[in-house]
């Protein structure tokens, strides 16, 4: 079973601060994703990566950066956090035409 681990699971950040959400996968998947989940919007894609060293913009990339330093790790970075970025963030990895495996999510609150 594919394992996707996110840290932290919960985070409270101050407006204007920097936040880094981390994700690790142990199944050697090339593709990794960051989504945010908000009521009424479902899951929206922020950034994705198709291998170490690559990052691509998803549908809502503004205010977010991503980093893929290795096959296993994919980080989401909020350089200047804002209250509108309060959400639940999910990391995922896998083949989009076969199956994508999700982490348990990070609940981020920006105050």
């Amino acid at each position, binding site marked *: 079973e594919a394992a*996707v681990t996110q840290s932290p699971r919960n985070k409270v950040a101050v407006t204007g601060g920097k936040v880094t959400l981390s994700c690790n996968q142990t199944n050697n998947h090339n*593709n990794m*994703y960051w*989504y945010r989940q908000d009521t*009424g*919007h*479902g*899951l929206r*894609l922020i950034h*994705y990566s*198709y291998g170490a060293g690559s990052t*691509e913009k*998803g549908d809502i990339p503004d205010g977010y950066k991503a980093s893929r330093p290795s096959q296993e790790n994919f980080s989401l970075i909020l350089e200047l956090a804002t209250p509108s970025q309060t959400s639940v963030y*999910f990391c*995922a990895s896998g083949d*989009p*035409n*076969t*199956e*994508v*495996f*999700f*982490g*348990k*999510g990070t609940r981020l609150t920006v105050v």
Partner: protein
Amino acid sequence: AQSVTQPDARVTVSEGASLQLRCKYSYSATPYLFWYVQYPRQGLQMLLKYYSGDPVVQGVNGFEAEFSKSDSSFHLRKASVHWSDSAVYFCAVSAGGYKVVFGSGTRLLVSP
């Protein structure tokens, strides 16, 4: 652009009753189609998927879905729901690229 529409934000059914959750997609070709489920405070898990062949596909825990090209739909069904099926269900589409597009989700509540 690909899109997925789940018209029902919430569905309530009685335990033991049948279930249908609706999903319509917009894409020029036949995409890969999925249903995922999210239990409370968990990530999403895949229930089933379809690309070609028999339009009715079976998934885990008694779920099935039927693909209709003419209707651009991929509805999820279950003959008899259990209280443990209460969750949020997402229809999703992949069109051969790198990403999966999810619908807004349907929250299912199974009442005793």
